[in-house]
């Protein structure tokens, strides 16, 4: 049974459709990430769930109860905002106590609970500080404690890590996951950073142009993207436009590369247009063709060395190809040379148009 259910949510501003028919079910205790570029509708969806925006049409339900007509303060949903939204005139403890105060909890008990919550997020003894006396990461934790202390039915995180530097981000990702598991709270996390989404989520919802492109676990999203957009947005990929020449034999044709075989797929019929995806790490680079693999000759244009690995960019005819190789293997090739690239049929994934 779903905990949160969105059905047919649309939002339009005049002629512009910000969201189109968004359907989504989220189970209790799940950690779901809304991923997409800015303007894709992920934040709008979040704000509709929170009650700060009203949908043009559609329903939001929690535990089968519609939220229609409920103001944000009646929804019992915890939110951590991008810039935290900590009250500057209140101490950390008072900030965390605030939602309890609004629910009529007595001051002594409320402040005790607030201290407990601060301890859970690793800020024991920081309760008396004002937000401006705390570091960015600490402010983040206070905001998290405040959004959780009143046991909300849902926790919304709106790009909460955007303002932190890289090391702190990773630390906070782990921290947020730990706290979320400890409390078992259903969580929606909004981000435009795919690696953040991959590392934290039970499931990822990919948004583009006001539509949900795909809802899937991180691994599924990486290996079986359903649209060309998802394939290009999640991880690196070589996307090759083809025409299916024989659906039964799983054969397709690209003008530059020629005939390509793809992994088992039941979808497009012969003659239809499609896109093939090959991840750069599934392509092998060698001087000579390799037995048992599909071999193509590529002219190497650029080599970018990262130390442990390298990215080799080159062209097969007019088709640009990216190949990821181990750092040690890159020495066999130089920029401007021709080489052989190869892959297994099973690593060629077909995406229907």
């Amino acid at each position, binding site marked *: 049974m779903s905990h949160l259910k969105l059905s047919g949510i649309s939002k339009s501003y005049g002629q512009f459709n910000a969201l189109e028919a968004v359907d989504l079910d989220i189970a209790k205790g799940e950690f779901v990430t809304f991923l997409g570029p800015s303007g894709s509708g992920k934040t709008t969806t979040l704000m509709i769930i*929170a009650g*700060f925006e009203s949908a043009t049409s559609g329903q939001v339900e929690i535990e089968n109860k519609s939220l229609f007509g409920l*103001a*944000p*303060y009646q*929804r*019992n*949903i*915890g*939110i951590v*905002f*991008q*810039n935290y*939204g*900590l*009250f*500057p*005139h209140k101490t950390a403890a008072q900030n965390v106590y*605030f*939602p309890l105060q*609004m*629910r009529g909890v007595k001051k002594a008990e409320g402040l005790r609970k607030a201290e407990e919550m601060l301890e859970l997020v690793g800020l024991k003894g920081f309760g008396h*500080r004002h937000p*401006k*006396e705390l570091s960015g990461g600490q402010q983040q934790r206070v905001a998290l404690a*405040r*959004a959780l202390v*009143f046991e909300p039915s849902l926790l919304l995180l709106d790009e909460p890590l955007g303002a932190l530097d890289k090391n702190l981000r990773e630390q906070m990702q782990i921290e947020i996951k730990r706290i979320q598991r400890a409390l078992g709270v259903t969580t929606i996390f909004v981000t435009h950073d795919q690696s953040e989404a991959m590392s934290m989520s039970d499931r990822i919802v990919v948004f583009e142009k006001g539509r949900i492109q795909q809802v899937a676990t991180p691994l599924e999203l990486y290996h079986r993207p359903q649209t060309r957009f998802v394939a290009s947005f999640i991880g690196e990929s070589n996307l090759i436009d083809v025409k299916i020449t024989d659906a039964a034999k799983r054969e397709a044709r690209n003008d530059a590369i020629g005939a390509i075989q793809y992994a088992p797929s039941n979808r497009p019929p012969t003659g239809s247009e499609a896109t093939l995806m090959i991840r750069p790490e599934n392509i092998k680079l060698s001087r000579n063709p390799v037995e048992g693999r599909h071999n193509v000759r590529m002219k190497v244009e650029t080599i970018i060395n990262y130390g442990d690995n390298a990215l080799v960019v080159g062209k097969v005819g007019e088709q640009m190809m990216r190949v990821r190789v181990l750092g040690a293997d890159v020495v066999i090739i130089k920029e401007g040379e021709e080489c052989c690239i190869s892959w297994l049929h099973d690593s060629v994934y077909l995406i229907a148009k």
Partner: protein
Amino acid sequence: MNRFLRWLGIAVAIFIAAPLVIVVPMSFSNARSLQFPPPGYWLGYYQAYFTDWSWLRPTWNSILIASATTMLTMVLVVPATFALVRHRFRGKGIADLMMLMPLAVPHIVMAVGYYSYFGSFGIVHTHLGVILAHTCLSVPIAFLVLSANLKGFDRTLERAALSLGASPTRTFIHITLPILRPGLIISALFAFIQSFDETVVAIFISGRDAETLPRKMFDSIRQEADPVIAVISTLLFAAVILGVTVPLVVAHIRNKQARLAAA
């Protein structure tokens, strides 16, 4: 070039400072008319000021009028500023302009208008008349200060409060108002000072009964140059020194404390 600028700067600084400073020794002077350097020193004119009703009454009137003006101004300006800063609606441009208009109209023009207009109601020469007029002149100043503050207000804070279960009213009381408090205080202070210092309109409409301090000073300077003016000037100047330096000192101490707390 730089040395030239420095000397020029010092000269200008003296030009600006000298007239402010000179009223202080003058207030302790025992001369009957303007004379500098003073022939001798005493506190007689301070005593004169604090015992003479012809000076105390205008002082009291000014405090009364400025306080009432401040209250009326804030009651009108606070909701209007929220409307103008936070909402977009037709006629907003005109409303904005209307708020600032009193700054653009010379006070002498308003004085002529009030003299005749309030005369027709019979409220010229009354406290009420001066308060009503001064409120118009204080509105733009209070509005400018408050709207600058409100524009800088992070509305995420209100959204956060709403999401945490506070109704719009409680959000306003617990979050919006406390955070805006410094802005509100400064805005009210500016309104108060504007009224307390306003001279031209007061000269024409305050009359004998509602005579304000600036009007009394103006008349006195014009007629006899009563040395008590030096006393009042010194007191006003002292108030300005306090008003300008105390916030600086307080901010300095707070900064130090914050740095200690963070360390």
